[in-house]
């Protein structure tokens, strides 16, 4: 027998604390700018809060459900803009004043950001869901509407593309 769904405010608060940073990171990577990412993140939490009674644990985790809502909101935002996110131009320049011993690390991470931004939107979204959102393959499958094995395969191929992009001469 399935456990009763906890739709209380306390449960939602726990979901928020567990997911807020990861959700924002995913949305920000997908959309490419802070303002839109903040709007979409806030809208996603608000929608999830209002629809929390409709959550069905048999169809996946609460986290996957929340990311599904956020993804729809983000894709709607992208449809409105009809442009892919220019990630590189808006990257925070946080490593610019790093000490020399950390220079290699800073360069590497800048390269990773640039490579991620250069990926096609679908691969970039997969990487963002997996490594910024921290979703399991099962949760990824729920969000993308595919099978778990298919989600794993797609993540692997996206990471391989990212690795190639990191090694490509700039």
């Amino acid at each position, binding site marked *: 027998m399935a456990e009763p769904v906890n739709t209380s*405010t306390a449960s*939602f*608060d726990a979901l*928020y604390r567990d997911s*807020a*940073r*990861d959700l*924002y*990171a995913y949305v*920000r*990577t997908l959309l490419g700018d*802070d303002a839109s*990412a*903040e709007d979409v*993140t*806030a809208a996603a*939490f*608000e929608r999830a*809060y*209002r629809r929390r009674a*409709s959550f069905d644990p048999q169809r996946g985790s609460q986290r996957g459900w929340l990311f599904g809502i956020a993804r*729809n909101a983000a*894709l*709607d935002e*992208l*449809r409105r803009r*009809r*442009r*892919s996110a220019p990630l590189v131009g808006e990257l925070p320049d946080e490593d610019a004043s790093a000490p020399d011993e950390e220079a290699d690390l800073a360069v*590497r*991470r800048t390269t*990773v*950001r640039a490579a*991620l931004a250069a990926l*096609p*939107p*679908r691969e970039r*979204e997969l*990487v963002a869901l*997996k*490594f*910024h959102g*921290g979703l399991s393959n099962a949760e990824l499958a729920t969000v*993308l*509407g*595919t099978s778990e*094995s*298919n989600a*794993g*395969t*797609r*993540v*692997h*191929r996206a*990471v*391989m593309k*990212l*690795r190639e992009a*990191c090694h490509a001469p700039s």
Partner: protein
Amino acid sequence: MRRLDPLTPDEARELDALERALAGDPVDPDLRELEQLVHDLRATAPEMTPAFAARLERDVADGFPDAAPRPKLRRPRRWVLPAVGVLAAALIALVVVLGQNGNDAATFTSLADGSSPTVTAAAPEAAADSAGGAAASKAAPAAPATVTANGSAGSARTPAPAAAVPAPAQPQALQRSDAPRKVQRSADLTITTPSAKFETTSDAVIRTVDRFGGIVAASSIGRQGAHGEASFDLRIPTGRLDDALAALSKLGHVSERTQDLQDITSSFTSVQDRLTEARAERKGLLAALAKATTQGQIDSLKARLRTVRATLGRLGAERASLQRRADLSRVSLTLRGVKGKSGGATTPGAGDHWTPGDAAHDALRVLEVMAGVALIALAIAVPLGLLGLAIALGARSLRRRERERALDPA
């Protein structure tokens, strides 16, 4: 979603390394590069600004008070709609089955009463036939051949037109257009009356026949329980047939009435002609006999006279019979005594009082009508519902595709 080729063992190992790196577990030395990539990706994850984080924290704590309030739709519990559907279907099926059984029972009862449903249905037709029959009888003298004025073909007991006796074919030379028409009329009448009035109605039939100068050629009266049946073979003067039929029809509920009209003019004329010829022949023979001189001639003429006299007698009787057929119309009357007040009702349960059985019958009828209305409503609602569902699913699929298209390169 397109199905991808499965991962090779090496690819699966790399994927496993990615999962281990995400979980903070050690990976194989040859896959350290992937581990480092995962760490770099985690490290480069964008972070919320403190201002946005504080605002979001406040909104969550307050339950998003600034958002526009939306009307709350109370969703029915999941089991409610299927349960209501099953219940409605079961109710409709039950009513249809009960209604079917009720109809069977009604038919059986009607047959057990000895009266078919068509008897009840034929009553109004019989009333209509009364006027039609009278009109036909007035037109009859001008009719050159057999005329039937029976009821509609819908009556089970109405004789088919083919059953009417056709006028015998006569040589054209023997027919005289100026001769008075001879018409034979007959009628069949079925009357139902309450059982309590069966005997008095039987007596009234005889009194009515007497009143119109008719005769009861034969009659039989039988009774079995609450039901009675009497048959009367009547002869009514043709000139008063319509009035007599009208009077007889008032004795009870007319459940069937047919009339038949047969032109016997040609038969009558034929007999009349042959009679005239025979008389002329007899006159001639008598004249010849008066002039006969030999015994042989006398014997021969007497023998021929005997033959002619016999022919005259036969033709005279034949003419008298035809004349009687024209003067007296045959009426076959059947009188039925049935249980009930109206005498004409054959509905099951029809009696002097409105019984619980009648109430149950009426209730069943109401349920039948309701079930019919529900079926019609379902016949309209189900296709509309399916169409709406298909549109909703199509719109959802379209919306999903459009969203996915947002990830395609511009």
